[in-house]
């Protein structure tokens, strides 16, 4: 064999080694393929989906709110919100990214960081900035290119609530705010994200589920440059339903003007069905201030205001009812037979009972007085006797007959139930025995009794209806966006009192007398054409006095609350008005004229409506400063 052959044989022998080497390398390649496609395939496929499929949450416009004549009270304005999706970035890159984005968006990074830490459980989306206008959005969208692959920002449309009437209806409408951590953790808010708007008060809160609508979802495919290629599927957002309120803006306006800047509450409702026609808690607040972002200074100011502008005093303000409560003793006495129309008590201006002197508001006294005039003139001594004869527990029974001591069931949140004291209550809560003197105080609406202005309106509704008590309501019906009625809030009878018709008749006559008879405490509510029935009340904030002190000489927070509750027309009444003016003096002087203004506004609006006139909402005038409320009347 020559050398050439040896060499060539040698060369050819090495071919096998080459092939073996190639096989090994290809085996490695196939092994890696197996690892990527078979072992990690599922995970990488999911990443591929993340790459290309984006799920965009389509905001559902929140429902609008109208008054009973379909005039817009709450509107939406379109905004954009930028969210940060922390899931996209590895943990150590989240903060630098956020810092960068915050600098670009001119947002305080520390604030976002705090929220980020507070909300980080479950790594939901973090709202970075809201209220972004379209032009700014366009700028933000150009940044997309820098983070291709996975993009940690999400942009969403958001509707900002607008309350064109401002303070005008703040308490009934309420406001929206960002969902808080507590809500986020509760199951009913499971489809909310941090930063989502949620009704925080009033109708916005109570009807959250109706107003909110259902978020839509759009799944679409994007290319690497984040261009939308095609929509894979989408569930369109279902706008929230609209609410039509029972409120009549015209009457609301009249209420506001009548009330001026007096602190207190006023509510007008229709006794035939419980519809709230006007509702005002004074002072009010501007709901725009409470829309996020909330200025902490302004928020604190609202919280610190001694006149509690944030509280809806109509439903949550607890006041001693004063003389307006005398109807309870009157009805109780008549029902239990402790009094009749002929029962006469002597009022010398006081009653010494149990070693203590209980004064009548009239120091001169009313002389010999029976039920009718006792109501008309609001004689305290007469009702001390009635109360004493009935006993506290009977008083409580008839208070509850009129709806005191329980929530009226109005469809706004945070209603208070007030307090109807009993022997049992005192021993349970105060760990003390009931003293008979306290019964006397309760009979004239002082002492432990606490009521809300709405309860008062409901009690007088019961009297006006001779026993029929409806649930007060502020939403007339729920409509879908295209105007179809989704749900109608039908009148709901809460209770039918067992009190005899005759007793109601007697009390009603007396209430008519209060307004219309000479010497009646509610004369300032008298109207020329309409028969008004009502009752004044002057509830003392300080203890029922041994010494009679003029209220106006006391410091503001210790002055009397002025009450006036009325309904009209006395027969077949259409409207109940309850007025509570805080620390402002005598019910007949301060509250009755306000009620009269509301009543006259109501009937003039009614005449307009009968002619088919509904004026559009123009600028609602700010409340005029309260006028001088005349002389004190005893």
């Amino acid at each position, binding site marked *: 064999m020559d050398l050439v052959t040896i*060499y060539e044989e040698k*060369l050819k022998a090495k071919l096998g080694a*080459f092939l073996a080497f190639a096989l090994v390398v290809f085996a490695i390649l196939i092994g890696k393929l197996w690892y*990527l496609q078979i072992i990690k395939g599922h995970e*990488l496929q999911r990443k591929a989906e993340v790459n290309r499929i984006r799920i965009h949450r389509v905001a559902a416009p929140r429902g609008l709110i109208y008054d009973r004549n379909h005039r817009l009270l709450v509107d939406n304005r379109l905004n954009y919100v930028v969210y940060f999706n922390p899931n996209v970035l*590895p943990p150590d890159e989240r903060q630098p990214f956020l810092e960068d984005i915050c600098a670009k968006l001119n947002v305080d990074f520390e604030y976002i960081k705090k929220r980020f830490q507070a909300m980080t459980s479950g790594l939901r989306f973090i709202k970075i900035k809201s209220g972004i206008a379209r032009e700014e959005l366009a700028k933000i969208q150009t940044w997309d290119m820098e983070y291709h*692959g996975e993009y940690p920002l999400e942009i969403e449309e958001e509707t900002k609530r607008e309350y064109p009437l401002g303070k005008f209806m703040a308490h009934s409408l309420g406001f929206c705010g960002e969902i808080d951590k507590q809500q986020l953790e509760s199951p009913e808010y499971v489809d909310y994200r941090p930063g989502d708007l949620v009704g925080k008060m009033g109708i916005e809160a109570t009807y959250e589920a109706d107003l909110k609508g259902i978020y839509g979802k759009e799944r679409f495919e994007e290319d*690497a440059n984040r261009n939308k290629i095609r929509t894979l599927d989408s569930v369109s957002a279902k706008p929230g339903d609209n609410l039509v309120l029972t409120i009549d803006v015209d009457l609301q306006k009249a209420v506001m003007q009548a009330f001026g800047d007096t602190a207190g509450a006023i509510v007008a409702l229709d006794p035939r069905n419980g519809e709230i026609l006007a509702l005002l808690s004074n002072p009010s607040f501007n709901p725009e201030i409470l829309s996020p972002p909330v200025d902490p200074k302004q928020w604190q100011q609202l919280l610190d205001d001694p006149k509690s502008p944030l509280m809806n005093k109509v439903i949550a303000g607890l006041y001693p009812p004063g003389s307006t409560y005398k109807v309870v003793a009157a009805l109780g006495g008549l029902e239990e037979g402790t009094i009749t129309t002929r029962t006469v008590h002597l009022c010398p201006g006081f009653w010494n009972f149990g070693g203590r002197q209980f004064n009548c508001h009239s120091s001169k006294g009313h002389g010999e007085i029976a039920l009718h005039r006792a109501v008309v003139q609001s004689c305290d001594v007469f009702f001390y006797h009635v109360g004493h004869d009935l006993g506290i527990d009977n008083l409580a029974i008839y208070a509850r007959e009129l709806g005191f001591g329980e929530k009226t069931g109005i469809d706004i949140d945070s209603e208070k139930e007030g307090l109807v004291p009993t022997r049992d209550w005192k021993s349970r809560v105060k760990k003390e025995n009931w003293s008979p003197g306290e019964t006397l105080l309760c009979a004239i609406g002082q002492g432990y009794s606490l009521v809300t202005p709405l309860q008062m309106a409901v009690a007088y509704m019961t009297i006006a209806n001779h026993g029929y008590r409806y649930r007060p309501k502020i939403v007339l019906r729920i409509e879908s966006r295209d105007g179809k009625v989704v749900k109608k809030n039908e009148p709901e009878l809460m209770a039918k009192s067992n009190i005899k018709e005759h007793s109601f008749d007697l009390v009603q006559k007396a209430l008519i007398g209060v307004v219309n008879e000479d010497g009646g405490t509610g004369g300032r509510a008298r109207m020329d054409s309409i028969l008004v029935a009502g009752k004044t009340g002057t509830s003392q904030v300080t203890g029922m006095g041994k010494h009679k002190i003029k209220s106006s000489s006391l410091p503001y927070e210790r002055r009397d609350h002025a009450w006036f509750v009325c309904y009209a027309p006395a027969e077949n009444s259409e409207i109940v008005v309850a007025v509570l003016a805080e620390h402002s003096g005598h019910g007949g002087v301060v509250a009755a004229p306000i009620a009269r203004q509301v009543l006259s506004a109501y009937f003039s609006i009614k005449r307009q409506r009968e002619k088919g006139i509904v004026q559009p909402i123009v600028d609602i005038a700010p409340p005029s400063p309260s006028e001088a409320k005349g002389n004190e009347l005893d």
Partner: protein
Amino acid sequence: MKIRQSYNIREFGVPERSPGAGRIDRRLLYNFDFLLMFLIIILTTAGMANLYSATAVTDLGLFRSQISWLPVCVGVMILFFSINYTLLEGMTYRIYLVVCALLLAVDLTGYTSHGAQRWLNIGLFKLQPSEFAKIALVLALVQYFYNNPNVKGYSLREVLAPLGLLILPFLMVIKQPDLGTAGLLILIAFTLFIYVGVRKSVLLWIAVVGSGSLPILWFFILKAYQKTRILTFFNPDKDPLRTGYHIKQSLIAVGSGRWFGTGYLKGTQSGLRFLPEQHTDFTFSVFAEEWGFVGSVLLLLLFLALIGRALIIASRSKDRFGTLLSVGIAALIFWQVAINVGMCLGIFPVVGVPLPFFSYGRSALLTIFISAGLLLNISSRRFMF
């Protein structure tokens, strides 16, 4: 270039040229390597179909220009098949020098794209001489080892000349810079060195000098982007949105193919342009996503069959030149497939080596068809001496 003749050329001699060289005779067709032809056709078809898918959303013009170039490639393949390869023996150095001249021209006047000066505009199309450098280097080295057979293994002095043959195009290619091709030239050359047999001392020397020149390469020759690519390869998560993005997206595309793939033209990552350079560097990722594990393994087996066939041709070849040339071409194909696929699978840094028959690039396609023509040539002439 003057090549020093080996001392034992007389003992070995150089075979007489075959009298029928240059003419197609019946034996040529009788011995035609249909299996190789079948592999070439099927790989070309798959490559073209995949290129269509890869460019369908980006730029179908790329696909059109590639497929319209195909007839030229086939023509050149037939040319390289029909001329008896033994005729090449006298031309290899000249081909080598022409290609080196082209590389020099690129360095002086070349057309720049993607920050690298690789292309030479010759009117009809832009020529990428670094692609031709691969086959030219193979031819020159084969020529040298054919002229200088050595049973005992080449000594250091004897490999200086082939090292020179390697270093000249290597330097010009790396200056462009084209790290992938430069690396490929080294791999092809070393494969041939080891195949023909060099002494252990030579390997040692090469290892010492090679590792000594690495810092020079790193600090003076490599561009910043090339360094980043290499660094990224070792730590792809470090900068996932920029350089590591390429590798990550490629892995996602490959992985989401799973068993059977998303289906032809249904690749989500390529279709939506998440894959970078999907018609060149990452064309295999497109294929892997659309055809899955089964398709990818099949493709790799086809490439393996092609390499295996080249090695069989080498073993059947009646002369040493054919054997060496077949091995050189096998190495050329093997390293390109291994590096490109390894790159797509994240086991090799992104260096820009085309996948034969698949990657877009007319010079690359022409080179692979020249190689294929030469293989067919050697295979069909195995009984002709």
